[in-house]
């Protein structure tokens, strides 16, 4: 297992390198620059700015300089938020986004899996249809519709919760977490239902029934593990996505997360900020896919990553 982990870690480095290279040149290809505005700057100032941020150097030079920075884990100064480094921006926003995303993820798992399993046990009966229709609605309604509706109901009409703003307190987290979690609950419920139905049809479940085990034991001891495998593979990329925040949710609830940096950074041609969030997202994707593989191996005894095959 250790051997495999080291290999995976080693293979992550070229992946990240490619990601950095692509992102670096792509953002530079985009027209306009970080300091272009409505009004053209005087040439002297422009030259000074360019010199300060090394934009006057040839592109390959800038690229190498950036790589060297990254190696030292320095993402550089933000081009737009003056006096802020990208490290600072991410360090401030990431805990907020991670908290919201993590809670939404847990909520989605805690609700989505039981709902999906419940529907699978009532396949093609009214309960199943009801739950799956609601899930379909949950997937279809975009969060910029859900969020204002939630605010309208719980913040304005009922007055139970604040409509927006941020501090690390449960009341401020409830609505954004629910907004983030809803479509995920729906997805997880649908995936769980589908795979559970398939597993319940397999021969080894028939054997478990023939052994006289009660349905509950069959469900938890025999069917759940295999039924969860597709959910786990969905979770890898989904977790990376939800932890890096959502522009829409952050805007509507005025939350200082990192989700809006993806859009703001790109619009402002804030080269270093864009690179920073892209690299963060890349690392999370790689990390979660690795975790998914580990969980797979833990759940399914037929998967072994070690060189010595667990043979007879």
């Amino acid at each position, binding site marked *: 297992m250790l051997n495999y982990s080291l290999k995976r870690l080693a293979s992550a480095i070229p992946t990240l390198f490619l990601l950095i290279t692509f992102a670096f040149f792509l953002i530079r290809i985009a027209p306009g620059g970080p300091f272009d505005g409505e009004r053209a700057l005087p040439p002297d100032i422009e030259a000074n700015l360019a010199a300060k941020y090394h934009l006057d150097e040839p592109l390959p030079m800038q690229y190498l300089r950036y790589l060297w920075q990254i190696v030292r884990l320095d993402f550089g100064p933000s081009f737009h938020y003056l006096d802020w480094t990208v490290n600072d921006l991410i360090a401030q926003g990431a805990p907020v986004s991670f908290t919201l995303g993590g809670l939404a993820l847990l909520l989605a798992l805690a609700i989505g899996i039981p709902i999906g399993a419940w529907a699978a046990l009532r396949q093609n009966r009214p309960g199943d249809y009801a739950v799956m229709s609601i899930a379909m609605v949950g997937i279809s309604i975009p969060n910029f519709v859900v969020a204002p509706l939630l605010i309208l109901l719980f913040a304005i009409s009922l007055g139970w919760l604040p409509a927006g703003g941020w501090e690390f307190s449960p009341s401020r987290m409830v609505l954004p977490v629910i907004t983030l979690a809803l479509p995920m609950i729906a997805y997880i419920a649908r995936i769980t239902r589908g795979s559970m139905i398939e597993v319940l049809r397999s021969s080894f479940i028939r*054997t478990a029934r023939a052994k*006289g085990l009660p349905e509950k034991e069959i469900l938890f001891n025999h069917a759940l593990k295999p039924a969860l495998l597709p959910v786990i593979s969905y979770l890898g990329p989904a977790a990376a996505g939800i932890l890096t925040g959502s522009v829409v949710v952050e805007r509507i609830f005025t939350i200082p997360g990192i989700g809006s940096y993806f859009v703001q950074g790109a619009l402002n041609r804030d080269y270093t900020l864009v690179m920073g969030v892209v690299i963060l997202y890349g690392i999370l994707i790689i990390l979660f896919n690795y975790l998914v593989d580990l969980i797979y191996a833990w759940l399914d005894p037929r998967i072994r990553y070690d060189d010595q095959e667990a043979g007879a």
Partner: protein
Amino acid sequence: MALLEVRDLSVSFSTPDGVVHAVNGLSFDLEPGETLGLVGESGSGKTQTALALMGLLADNGRASGSVKFRDQELLGMSSRELTRVRGSKISMIFQDPISSLNPYLSIGDQLIEVLTHHRSLKRKAARERAVEMLERVRIGDPLARMRQFPHELSGGMCQRIMIAMGLLCQPDLLIADEPTTALDVTVQSQINALMGELSEKSSTAILLITHDLGVVAGLCDRVMVMYAGQEMEMAPVVTLFAEPAHPYTEGLLNSVPRLDRARSGILNAIPGNPPNLLQVPAGCPFSARCRHAWEACRERPAFAEVGPDHYKRCHLERLPEAPPET
């Protein structure tokens, strides 16, 4: 008193094409400790009969009639009551042993849970019993096997484990649904020998479903030949092989390749296919393929006694001599 009394058992499935009548009014008894062979072509309703006894029919399946096990009606029993019978008093082993075992659980866990559930044993005691049982079915190094997973074992080994699992609670009845069909020929004979040995040593009755007449000859006390979900002939095994009374039985026996007969170069087969079970055949279900069919066969013959403990469903008084070479 018979261990198992099946009376007028019918199994039907509602499908998009209509209702499929897989089993049509089957009746038979099984005595304690007896081994009964259930023989027939694919689609003759053997497996569905077994699944109906266990209450394991697919969701779209319905069983009617009566199945009494130790005077207790199994059909219509609540699933809770059924869990007390299954695996404890009646157990079942299946055709494909590898996929019948849960690939996500160790062999040990799958054996132990039967005992912790039915016999309320502690895990440790259950583990000991399970190891003993693995030894009884001739599995080498049972302690190591307990820790292994099905994919690490061969098909024959998995079937031994299924048999061990079925016998853990010393059931009154073991239903074996083509237990050797998915295995190599040499492994087949080992498993058959094991089953024969176990049925002799224990008081467990066996309902053996197979299309292999050789297995029937070796293992069974009595045989029932099924066709289109009905019983065609039932007899003690020696009688059935010596004096088959039904043309279908004769056809089955003739289609077994023989080494001790002159080779004609052609394998004998029963011409035609089993009937479409979307409709229950009105007359004798086999008449469409029967060489001896005549007018009377448009009416369904009764399942009548033709000799001591020998029954057949056929209008012919006796089979014409000398089956012609095909």
